[in-house]
């Protein structure tokens, strides 16, 4: 059950990364329109907002369900192996995830005012910050899972 939930958590994370990375790429508009980068960035960023909010909430919900197993079955062995840095990385991941959860209302609000040019910088930076947190959390989760494994 926990392994299934962990895989679902990872898959939701991948979908969330894709949505947020597409949104961020749309700010840059790199490359020509016919290049891969150009086509990747040529999206309507507003269309990702509902998906990002839904996926982020789903990601946090699965994380909250997995957390007790981590605390008992993963963190304790890490401490016994003197892997303080790994425990610290997870602590950073959990707090970054918790803070970004609170950013979601502002994120949705800023995109609901996508036509307001005065909020363009805040809209871009909040989206980039959210993407950075999701990327960081994904990579940390991947590294910790590689250390501990599924067994």
């Amino acid at each position, binding site marked *: 059950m926990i392994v299934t939930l962990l895989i679902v958590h990872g898959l939701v994370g991948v979908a969330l990364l894709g949505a947020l990375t597409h949104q961020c790429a749309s700010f840059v508009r790199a490359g020509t329109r016919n290049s891969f980068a150009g086509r990747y960035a040529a999206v309507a960023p507003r269309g990702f907002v509902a998906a990002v909010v839904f996926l982020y909430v789903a990601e946090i919900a699965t994380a*909250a369900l997995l*957390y*007790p*197993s981590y*605390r*008992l079955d993963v*963190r*304790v062995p890490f401490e016994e192996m003197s892997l*303080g*840095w790994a*425990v*610290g*990385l997870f*602590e*950073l991941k*959990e*707090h*970054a995830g*918790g*803070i*970004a*959860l*609170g*950013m*979601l*209302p*502002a*994120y*949705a*609000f*800023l995109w609901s005012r996508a036509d307001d040019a*005065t*909020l363009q*910088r*805040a*809209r871009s*930076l*909040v989206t980039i*910050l959210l993407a950075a*947190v999701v990327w960081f959390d994904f990579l940390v989760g991947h590294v910790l899972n590689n250390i501990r494994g599924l067994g």
Partner: protein
Amino acid sequence: MTSRFSPAAFSLAYCVAYALVFVLDAPIFLYYPLEGVFAWAWSPYASAGPAMAWYGLVVAAAAIALPAACLVPQRLIIARRGIFLWFTPLAVLAICAWRLRFFFA
């Protein structure tokens, strides 16, 4: 009747409250995964296993942010081109990283 709830104020208040609750180590409740028991943070449960504070941190920050989101006008939060909306979470992330630096010493 229109709602006075401000999503931007909620996010700002949540981030500030999260930082305060984290720095003061004051989650509203703790969870004891070995026994599957919740207990108020001010009357801890005598557990043989570890206590988890994260759920209590998130709930405490949201509980503080909800009334703030109804009281603080949205126009104050989005003043100065919405700088508070990205600077505050960035600062709170930095505070959390600073507080956790001992793990990497």
